[in-house]
């Protein structure tokens, strides 16, 4: 019983970070209907950037998003104008090819720069654990979860209360109507792509406080975020958080009770089940 609760706790905390990653993916998919296969690799790239900054200047991983957030925003905007913008009116296959290409490119670049072996930063400030009712909670994971939730809340406020946020929502609701009342779609798309990518910088910094990074990690985060998005459906930010927690908990539970190698299996299983039984997700609008 103890192992069950303990692993549920760990997984749920991790799930908050998954939800943050997925929010970025969901922004990009929800607004411009682009299936970004490279999203997981943006997480991986963010983790390497955090590693680079952390090891160069001795900055603690938690603080690296101060630099990597704007950096990833720029990477996202550049990626949008360089490769996504031209494919928007083309066949779906072209878009897929382009984002898969970006994914391969990012992986190759990181491999070239940092080799294939895993990299990690020295212990973060937020190490150690706290004990509550006999359970052990890693401080780094707890803080990661809290920061993720705060970031999700921040994005939610940005979308609902600001002019660019409203423009993003209007464009994702009806592009033609939004354009004809003055919303510049390319600008809005670039912003959404930039923001969606920048969110992985926060996740990347948090992950580096307790995890190492290697160039193949992108796939794992990519699939995880697609699974969380499928489970949540489009349009509900609280739903995204809940789904992230469910996926995180399921993953961690299957590792504890069954086999550590089964973690992806369970995630895939959820993914397939949801697409089969409830394609619009648990909280999706249509």
């Amino acid at each position, binding site marked *: 019983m103890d192992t069950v609760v303990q692993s549920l706790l760990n997984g749920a905390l991790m799930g908050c970070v998954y939800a943050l990653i997925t929010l970025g993916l969901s922004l990009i998919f929800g607004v411009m209907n682009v299936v970004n296969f490279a999203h997981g690799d943006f997480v991986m790239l963010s983790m390497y950037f955090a590693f680079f900054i952390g090891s160069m200047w001795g900055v603690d991983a938690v603080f690296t998003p101060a630099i990597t957030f704007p950096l990833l925003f720029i990477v996202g905007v550049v990626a949008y104008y360089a490769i996504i913008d031209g494919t928007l009116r083309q066949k779906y296959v072209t878009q897929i090819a382009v984002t898969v290409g970006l994914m391969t490119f990012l992986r190759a670049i990181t491999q070239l720069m940092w080799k294939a072996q895993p990299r990690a930063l020295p212990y973060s400030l937020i190490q150690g654990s706290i004990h509550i009712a006999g359970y052990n909670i890693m401080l780094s994971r707890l803080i990661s979860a809290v920061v993720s939730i705060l970031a999700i809340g921040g994005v939610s406020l940005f979308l609902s209360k*600001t*002019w660019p946020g*409203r*423009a993003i*929502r*209007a464009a994702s*609701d*009806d592009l*033609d*109507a*939004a*354009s*004809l*009342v*003055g*919303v*510049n*779609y390319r600008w809005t798309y670039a912003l959404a792509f930039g923001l969606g990518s920048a969110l992985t910088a926060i996740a990347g910094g948090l992950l580096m406080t307790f995890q190492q990074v290697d160039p193949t990690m992108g796939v794992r985060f990519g699939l995880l975020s697609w699974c969380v998005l499928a489970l949540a459906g489009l*349009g509900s930010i609280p739903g995204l958080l809940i789904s992230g927690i469910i996926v995180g908990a399921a993953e961690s539970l299957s590792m504890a009770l069954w086999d550590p190698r089964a973690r992806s299996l369970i995630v895939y299983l959820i993914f397939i089940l949801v697409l089969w039984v409830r394609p619009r997700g648990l909280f999706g*609008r249509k």
Partner: protein
Amino acid sequence: MSSKPILQVSNLTKRFGNLVAVNNVTLQIHEGEIVGLIGPNGAGKTTFFNTITGLYTPDEGRVIFKGEDITGVPPHKICKLGMSRTFQVTKAFTEMTVEETVRVGAYNRHGEDDVMEKVDEVISFCGLEEIRHQKCGDLGLASLRRVELARAMATEPDLLLLDEAGAGLTAAELAELMEILRQLNKEQSVTLCVVEHVMQMVMGLCERIFVLDAGELIAEGTPEEISNNPRVIEAYLGERAIR
């Protein structure tokens, strides 16, 4: 009435494969006018709107708006220049409230500091106070059409295109809509171009009427001239005979 042209369309053609949806249309709309654009189903009215508002690029021809060539210019820029529209099949922002929807339009000319003044003004002008906090996705057709009108008005256009704004409205709702449009034209000197099947509305509202049939402009004139024009009668009767 001034006769300064606000919109000059020359030789406009839009094709979909073999189908010529808009065929070599030339027309002018003057500042301050209310003009109507009518024609049987599939005549190309909506396509004409889509082509001049930048949603489609024309295959041939030019569109000059307020002296500026806007052929091939993207919709948001055309909106900034002062043209907006409503849609035949309503395109509301389903996840937003009425107030937010209007606000998105109002950002066209206003910053965060004074945007709400504009929103309040338009909402009261269009009589939307009671539903201002409702989600557009939950509204009925009559309200949706009015929200679309408010959203377009909030961008402060000089030329407003209305695609069947009266379709599906009751007689009372129609009268209200016509009153709003008349006021908009008189008080805020917005030039209006209405596509309409509801003849009562076209005849009651418009000073000049254009008739499209199978993509071609077949007639133009005052409501009386149009209702007595043999080609127009034929286009409509022909359509009825086919049905």
